[in-house]
């Protein structure tokens, strides 16, 4: 317990403090960006693009090794992840527009193919000497042990950028999420704005790779907004509440994982966020299920008395 308290107050050591602050920033950015993703109903697309980033990571590693580098340069790996995720996104949108396949089928096919390819490449790399030391498999579920100051700075800068874009483009993104054809008649480029929303999800995926990993990052994008939705009827407020829930949940999750050895950070953050979602679902005054049940029971009693 004291260990948990130390972690919570950033006194559990340098690395744990970096992890907690990085996680908080990541959660904040993910909650805000994820709000637009969920309002536009693109949650599963963002999951598919996250999974699609794996082959890019491994190919970037191979390329850097082939060029005589060390292969572990984070920036190179993340660039590979972003390019590969973007390719997955474009393939999904191409399949949906050019064939009669529904978007969910296109997503399933792309997610499976890209992730499968990534795992095959990963296995190949792990059989090489350099690959064993690279620890690329940590990008699947995230790891905090090797978190460096540079990594934390990258998350902080990337997260700040995501938040900045969310604020600056809040009106067009909200409008497109609610009523895209109407937005088009006002002169907004709806395809570009859709791409921007997915780009924000992609950016969160990339900066969260190290800490949470690509398998679970979708949870950081989706759970805070749906939890926030229980507390407000305003899209603008939902964005900041989701950011708050995401930031607090990720910070708390990082502290918990730092308080005991070998607790995986990403999955614990997701579980903490799920707890936040459950509490919101039960307790939120206007939309929560407990209050709704109470109101329902009171109304029934009143009607029965009246009868």
């Amino acid at each position: 317990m004291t260990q948990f308290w130390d972690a919570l107050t950033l006194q559990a050591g340098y690395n744990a403090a970096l992890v907690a602050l990085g996680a908080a920033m990541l959660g904040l950015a993910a909650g805000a960006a994820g709000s637009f993703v969920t309002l536009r109903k693109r949650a599963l697309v963002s999951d598919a693009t996250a999974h699609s980033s794996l082959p890019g990571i491994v190919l970037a590693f191979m390329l850097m090794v082939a060029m005589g580098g060390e292969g572990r340069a984070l920036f190179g790996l993340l660039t590979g992840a972003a390019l590969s995720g973007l390719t997955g996104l474009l393939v999904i949108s191409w399949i949906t527009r050019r064939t009669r396949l529904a978007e969910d089928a296109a997503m399933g096919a792309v997610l499976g193919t890209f992730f499968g390819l990534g795992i095959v490449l990963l296995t190949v790399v792990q059989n090489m000497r350099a690959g064993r030391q690279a620890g690329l498999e940590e990008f699947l579920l995230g790891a905090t042990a090797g978190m460096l100051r540079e990594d934390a700075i990258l998350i902080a800068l990337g997260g700040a950028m995501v938040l900045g874009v969310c604020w600056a483009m809040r009106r067009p993104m909200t409008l497109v999420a609610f009523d895209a054809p109407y937005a088009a008649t006002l002169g907004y480029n709806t395809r570009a704005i859709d791409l921007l929303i997915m780009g924000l999800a992609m950016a969160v995926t990339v900066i969260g790779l190290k800490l949470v990993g690509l398998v679970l990052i979708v949870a950081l994008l989706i759970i805070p907004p749906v939890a926030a939705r229980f507390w407000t009827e305003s899209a603008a407020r939902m964005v900041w509440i989701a950011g708050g829930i995401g930031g607090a949940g990720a910070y708390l999750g990082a502290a918990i994982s730092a308080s005991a050895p070998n607790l995986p950070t990403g999955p614990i953050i997701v579980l903490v966020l799920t707890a936040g979602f459950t509490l919101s679902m039960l307790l939120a005054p206007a939309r929560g299920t407990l209050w709704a049940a109470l109101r329902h029971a009171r109304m029934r009693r009143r009607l029965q008395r009246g009868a």
Partner: protein
Amino acid sequence: MTALPAHSPLAVRGLSVTYGDKPAVEDVDATFPAAALSAIIGPNGAGKSTFLKACLGVVPRLSGEVAIFGQTFEDARARVAYVPQRASVDWDFPATVLDVVQMGQYRRAGLWGRLSGAARVQALACLDRVGMTDFAKRQIGQLSGGQQQRVFLARALAQEADLYLLDEPFAGVDAATERAIVEVLRSLRAAGKSVIAVHHDLATVAEYFDHVFLINVTRRAEGPVATAFTAETLHATYGGRLAPMGTGLRSQEAAE
């Protein structure tokens, strides 16, 4: 091809739109009158909504020209307000009635400009015109279908446009809402604005509208209600021997 008239709020020449390998709208000409209420009429799947969306650039057109007050839509955008079908959006979206109406002001406010107090007053005035002032703070998911339609109309009013394009504004609304909407449309006409609505209730065409445009993929008839909305033009649009019920019109066959 004749030049597109500048006096018309919406003039179209040779407009075609396809979905896949089927034409949805084929080689359509139309000229709508200014300061009038016009109805676009045709059976289900006749391309009425598609025609409207193609004029607005929401769906890509294969060919044809569209002029709004003699200009391209891109140049005349600020003079046009669009009211989509009510069922085209998810009404559980986190927004209040006032939020939705103020979406009509986004363009004027600019990307980062604040929506001023004056804008808020204007939005409330638009809600008042559709009889929804008391609902300003209400979550949109709690509205009835008719109330949702009025909110969409108020959003278009907030744009302060000269041409209003409505896609089935009377679909699935209560009688009170229908009257309220007709009243607003008439007040727009009285102020010199032009209104074009996709309409499917043939019984009310003559009562509500001045001008009709009949379409079934291709143009079937066009003109003032008195001359263009007849048993013959309806037959040409809807086909079959069935005289549409309740229009007050009798087909010649039935009369014989």
